[in-house]
């Protein structure tokens, strides 16, 4: 018998640590080669760690939520060292299991699962190595504490003994509403008792009962990343938020005309590609707004390329996929790339590179964008443009009120780097471009 040490594997270029988000095993479990032991999270992707050997778990080196440095001991396994395994032997064997990048597929929930090929291989191995019988990993607990209620077809009577039926009838209870805990969903006297004492209370006073329950939810994974990033941004960056209203009537007319007349292979235009192109123009005048501020080194990295992060709501939380080199994309190119990134982020398929490298960010909630927001800068950038909702408002044109499509831009800036004047000039420039959209496309 020998011991096998699994270290935190190198899960990506330039990554020094990863957060343990899930254990699939516990001490004492028997595992097979390739069985999933744990899941770790880096940046915004989750990677599962398979077992490189058959063995028994002796020790787990971290708790869920711990951030573990790459190469740190993670799991110790007791392994059988019989002939046939030349790397075995009685000495302690150290190895970090290789993460097969080509074998992992990002899933909708952001997790990464072993591909079918590995599952197949695992199945074959299970057939080959019958004894000893390891636990199936991962697996739901064997003990079912509560039998789920058996679904009854419409018109099908509840299963209950005549005595239970009679008691229910006398008490004026429709047994179809009583959940049965017995075999085949049979309603017992105890079920009826429970229904009599508890089952009717909510019906008597709907919505007025006190709920004293407290659920303790550990902040892990993507939520923890978001929390950290927001805390850094808000604690380190003195925000200045500037709100201006923009008349987008002309822009909306243009957008409608372009959408009505567009080629079938082109995506439907939203307001964002226009805004992105307008930002490129404005940045040309004020390049210091398109920058990343390394406040520890005291250096502002002012980028030539405009890489716009797009704050995107996904099933697992906020993600910011990045449209690279907007300065080199036309309106349709922006729209196409925007759609592609938003979809892959929502499906959890965004690659790591697609989620990093932004130099300025847009946040837009569309129709629920509100009147004013106070966007939090995507640290370490220096500016974020917030888009509020478009609404028709009366505007005084000098002689009368006319209905115009109005939209606010709520934008935040890092006041350490950007003065209020510069911020205002930047937003006014974008406003001017959006109000006369032809100017977006006219070469200066």
């Amino acid at each position: 018998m020998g011991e096998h040490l699994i270290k935190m594997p190198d899960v990506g270029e330039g990554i020094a640590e990863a957060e343990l988000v899930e254990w699939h095993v516990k001490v004492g479990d028997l595992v097979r080669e390739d069985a999933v032991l744990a899941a770790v999270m880096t940046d915004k992707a989750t990677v599962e760690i398979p077992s490189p050997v058959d063995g028994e778990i002796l020790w787990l080196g971290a708790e869920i939520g711990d951030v573990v440095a790459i190469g740190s001991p993670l799991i110790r396994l007791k392994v059988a060292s019989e002939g046939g395994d030349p790397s075995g032997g009685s000495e302690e064997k150290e190895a970090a299991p290789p993460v097969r990048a080509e074998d992992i597929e990002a899933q909708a929930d952001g997790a990464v699962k072993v591909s079918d090929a590995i599952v197949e291989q695992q199945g074959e191995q299970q057939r080959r190595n019958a004894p000893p019988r390891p636990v199936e990993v991962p697996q739901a607990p064997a003990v079912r504490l509560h039998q789920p209620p058996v679904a009854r077809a419409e018109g099908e009577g509840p299963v209950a003994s005549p005595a239970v039926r009679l008691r229910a009838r006398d008490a004026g209870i429709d047994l179809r509403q009583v959940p049965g805990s017995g075999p085949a969903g049979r309603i017992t006297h105890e079920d009826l008792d429970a229904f009599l004492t508890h089952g009717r209370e909510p019906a008597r006073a709907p919505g007025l009962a006190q709920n004293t329950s407290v659920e303790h939810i550990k902040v892990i994974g993507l939520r923890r990343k978001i929390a950290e990033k927001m805390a850094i941004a808000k604690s380190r960056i003195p925000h200045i938020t500037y709100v201006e209203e923009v008349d987008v009537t002309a822009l909306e007319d243009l957008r409608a005309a372009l959408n009505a007349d567009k080629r079938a292979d082109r995506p439907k235009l939203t307001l964002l590609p226009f805004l992105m192109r307008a930002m490129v123009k404005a940045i040309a005048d004020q390049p210091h707004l398109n920058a990343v501020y390394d406040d520890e080194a005291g250096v502002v990295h002012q980028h030539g390329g405009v890489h716009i992060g797009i704050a995107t709501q996904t099933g697992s939380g906020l993600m910011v996929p990045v449209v690279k080199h907007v300065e080199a994309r036309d309106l349709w190119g922006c729209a196409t790339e925007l759609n592609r990134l938003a979809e892959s982020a929502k499906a959890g398929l965004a690659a790591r590179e697609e989620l990093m490298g932004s130099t300025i960010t847009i946040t837009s909630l569309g129709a629920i964008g509100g009147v004013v927001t106070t966007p939090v800068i995507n640290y370490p950038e220096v500016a974020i443009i917030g888009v509020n909702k478009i609404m028709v408002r009366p505007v005084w044109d000098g002689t009368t009120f006319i209905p115009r499509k109005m939209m606010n831009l709520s934008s935040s800036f890092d006041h350490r780097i950007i003065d209020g004047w510069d911020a205002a000039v930047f937003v006014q420039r974008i406003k001017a471009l959006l109000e006369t959209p032809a100017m977006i496309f006219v070469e200066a």
Partner: protein
Amino acid sequence: MKDISCKLLVIGAGPGGYVCAIRAGQLGIDTVIVEASKPGGTCLNIGCIPSKAIIHAAEEYDRIVHLSSGRNSLGISAAKPELDFSQTIAWKDTIVGRLNSGVSSLLKRAKVKMVQGQARFRDGKTVEVATEMGHQIIRAENVVIATGSVPIELPSLPFGGSVISSTEALALSGIPERLVVVGGGYIGLELGTAFAKMGANVTVVEAQARILPQYDAELTKPVAKRLQALGIQVMTGAKAKGLVRSGDALLVEAGDGSEVTLAADKILVTVGRRPVTQGWGLEELVLDMDGPFIRIGERCQTSMRGIYAIGDVTGEPMLAHRAMAQGEMVAEIIAGHRRAWDKRSIPAVCFTDPEIVSVGLMPEDAKKAGTEIRLGHFPFSANGRAMTKLGEDGFVRVTARSDNHLVLGIQAVGHGVSELAAAFGLALEMGARLEDIAGTIHAHPTQGEAFQEAALKALGHELHI
């Protein structure tokens, strides 16, 4: 005569009516029951009970005939038996008489007033009874119609002379030499078999493709086999056309279209029963009907407030135990209890040879309802007790849902299986799963073990086959 006013009036003292009246009396309801004939209705007087008496006598006689016919495996020899059928009928009558007076005393003990005579509605709250002493008016807050059913008469074979119904068949003065039974349902087969055992030459004429058409072929096969062994000729797909002119033979159109003349001393017509909806003033009421039956709801209420109907007059299955359960329920409803019909099953028994019992759904019914099922089938040929009784024909069959093993139906065919109806019915009412039956110790050696084994078989781990 002084008018009677009461809280509950029950019309008809058959199994439904008298149970309703007894229960109502127990509950302190002021109850009157009207009966034109003897208490007990069809069941007690001219149905279930007298037929079982005749069937038993026939079985006993047939057993001795068998033992006296030569060497048998039991090594018993006996002299050829003699049958005094008039004595048999007299014995049957004493049983019926005992039960008649039993019902009367039960009603009396429950303080139910009995009125003898033909009842007739005047309106929904008033009934006039033609008694021996004159017309009696009864006013009641609630009325329960329990008028029962009578044998159906064929237009081509009106009752009378040699054409008889089950009523006359149970009161014959002698065994007919040649008996033709028109209708191969359970009543015709029960009586036909009994008379065949007592020496009659019996032919059964059934219009459908096989006997006992409400059961599947698997269940009826042992019965068909026994009929053949008893020398009973069964004509299926055959129609009775009428009597020949002389009246001593029946014209039958056989299944192949040919016409056959069956000589007969008696022609027993058992083609079903119809509800009694005439002669008691139905036309004075405004009751919704359901075909020939009175339409009732889940509380046996009719379309008129305060008028209930129970038993055969309300539809199929026309069985005494259904009427009794309805009667009991209605009495409790009238007493103010919350009740509604929620029975899971009404067992059905054929006292044929061998007997058939069915509770709940047939496998085919369950399949038609779209339920995925698993079946367990255990033959009596593998049951020790059945072997020792020389009754190896038949089986127990259990149908359960395949997803949660809830038992949906149980059938059996075999000697004495009617008594298994108790266990079968209880299993269904209690919502038993296959595991419940399989996990119950069934006494050895009994035929009931086949029930447990059938459940085990449905679960895939039968022990004794």
